[in-house]
């Protein structure tokens, strides 16, 4: 972007230079209130989460806070959100690692070897990820039942891996094809087999793409609801999204508890966002910016 403006020729830049200070003012005068309004819902929910139940019932949900308490968070954690966060973490970590591993294998094979119909295979895999999940839900529930893994975290992990594979493979395929063949050629001359080339050269070189996909996949899998409520039944196994809906049903008017639960469920993905902002944004763009 810096390039874009710096390449502006002096002749064109000059007429815009004069009012630029004033325009900067206008820009911030519009954007600052807009941005504050944009994050106002977050601020509001955060204040509700830290208010006490008494304060909310007595003074109303929409009034300014007059108390500060962690009761909402304690109750939410005790009512299953704590366990659900652990479930979500387990499912997310295992599913992200497994699906990126499998996708990188498939992408390596498709991008670097003369597999017949590789383009068709790749497109079919990507198409699988684009399908509306609704068209898979009922049969997937039946399959997990017949395999005896219905209502287990394993079922959720397997489903998440299967559904995500196509997209990850597609993105990694594009990335791997961009890696110069000479590097691999050199390794081959040195006597490295395909497995070695994959593990020692391809995966390390794909780190940027893997990081972006990992950041994106983490939010996808952690945030999923529909697969969870399709293959899980017992509350003890629910990930945090499904547990939140239960919490809401159980604490109908305890808005401090509901808000605390929602905040707790938002924290992990917010951490991923703030720590890996660059990767997260490039993850959002992968596959879509052509």
């Amino acid at each position, binding site marked *: *972007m810096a390039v*874009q*403006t710096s390449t*502006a020729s002096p002749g*064109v830049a000059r007429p815009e230079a004069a009012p630029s200070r004033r325009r900067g003012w206008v820009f911030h005068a519009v*954007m600052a209130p807009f*941005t504050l309004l*944009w994050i106002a*819902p977050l601020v509001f929910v955060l204040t*509700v989460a830290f208010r006490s139940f008494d304060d909310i019932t007595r003074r109303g*949900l*929409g*009034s300014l806070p007059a108390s500060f308490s962690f009761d909402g968070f304690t109750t939410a954690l005790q009512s299953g959100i704590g366990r659900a966060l652990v479930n979500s973490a387990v499912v997310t970590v295992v599913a992200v690692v497994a699906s990126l591993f499998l*996708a990188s294998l*498939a992408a390596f*094979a*498709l991008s670097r*070897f*003369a*597999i*017949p119909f590789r383009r068709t295979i790749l*497109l079919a895999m*990507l198409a699988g*990820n*684009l*399908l*509306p999940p*609704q*068209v898979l839900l*009922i*049969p997937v529930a039946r399959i997990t039942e017949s395999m005896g893994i219905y209502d287990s975290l394993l079922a959720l992990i397997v489903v998440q891996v*299967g559904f995500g594979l196509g997209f990850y493979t597609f993105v990694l395929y*594009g990335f791997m*094809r961009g890696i110069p063949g000479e590097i691999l050629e050199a390794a081959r001359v040195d006597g490295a*087999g*395909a497995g070695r*080339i*994959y593990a020692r050269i391809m995966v390390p070189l794909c780190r940027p793409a893997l990081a972006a996909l990992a950041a994106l996949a983490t939010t996808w899998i*952690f*945030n999923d*609801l*529909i697969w969870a409520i399709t293959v899980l039944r017992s509350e003890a196994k629910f990930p945090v*999204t499904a547990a*939140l809906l239960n919490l*809401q049903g159980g604490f109908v008017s305890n808005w401090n508890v509901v*808000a605390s639960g*929602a905040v707790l*469920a*938002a924290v992990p*993905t*917010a951490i*991923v*966002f703030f720590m890996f*902002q660059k990767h*997260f*944004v490039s993850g*959002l*763009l992968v596959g*879509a*910016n052509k």
Partner: protein
Amino acid sequence: MSQPDLATTPDQQAPPVSRRRRASSGRVPRIVWLFLLIPLAVELAWVFWPAMNSFWLSLTRWSGVGAAEFVGFDNYANLLDDPVFRTAASNTVIWTIGFGGLSVIMGLTLAVVLNRPRRGVGLYRSAIYLPMVFSLVVTGLFWRVLYQPDGAINSTFELIGLDGVARQWLADPDTALYAVLIAAVWRQVGYIMVLYLAGLKGVDPSLEEAAAVDGANRWQRFRYVVFPQLRGVNTVIFAVTVIDSLRTFDIVWAMTRGGPYDSSQLLSTYMFQQGFTLVNLGYGSAIAVTIFLLAIGFIITYLVRATRED
């Protein structure tokens, strides 16, 4: 192990294509076949096989016990007479247009405004795409709290003297769908903005300069010079938005479960209710297949676009 063929990109293959291809395909090492076939088997078992099953199930009547009874296209015929299905279908149309239209207009506007590097831009951008990282369930709950009768939305209306506007947003059949829609757009705008920012990076600045020299004003430069160059991004956003709209489930489920009185029912929530709450597996599958048929054209559009440069 035989030698791996590292022929790299397909276009780099040697001239005598047919002979070379046959020869090299024979030289794909066995381990590489394994690399491909394991992930492929996983996806076939968990995506393609279930998808095909749905088509078959949609032609049956089945409550999950005993054998499924084949009924041909009865389920589809019943859909046409089902008032809830008709509500869900028209809501899905409203949803797609509203969700897509609002988030694209706002996302594109913000992308154009926040495209030039200046102080504070990074902060504004981050704040706007921050909601994107929350799950739709969390977004739904956040907005449920806001929409409560004594919540922030109504308090704000009362504060600025618009007491008459205040209402039970999610309990009122007239407003429930739109209340959910606003929450979904709030989350989506940041994503669309990021996509457009990426698209604007690819816009050739010299063309805009030339237009400026010719006396085109800001709007004309955007409309006739910049916007046409965003055609690729537009296609992708269009396809992604429609596919996402048809899939929308979590946020409605978290906020209204399709109610009150089915007023915020979408095809996807109705499918879930029929399939899992009422266990009408055949009927639910017919709705699922309907969603698939509506999505397939946009899926193909996306596939064509995403692989165009290959």
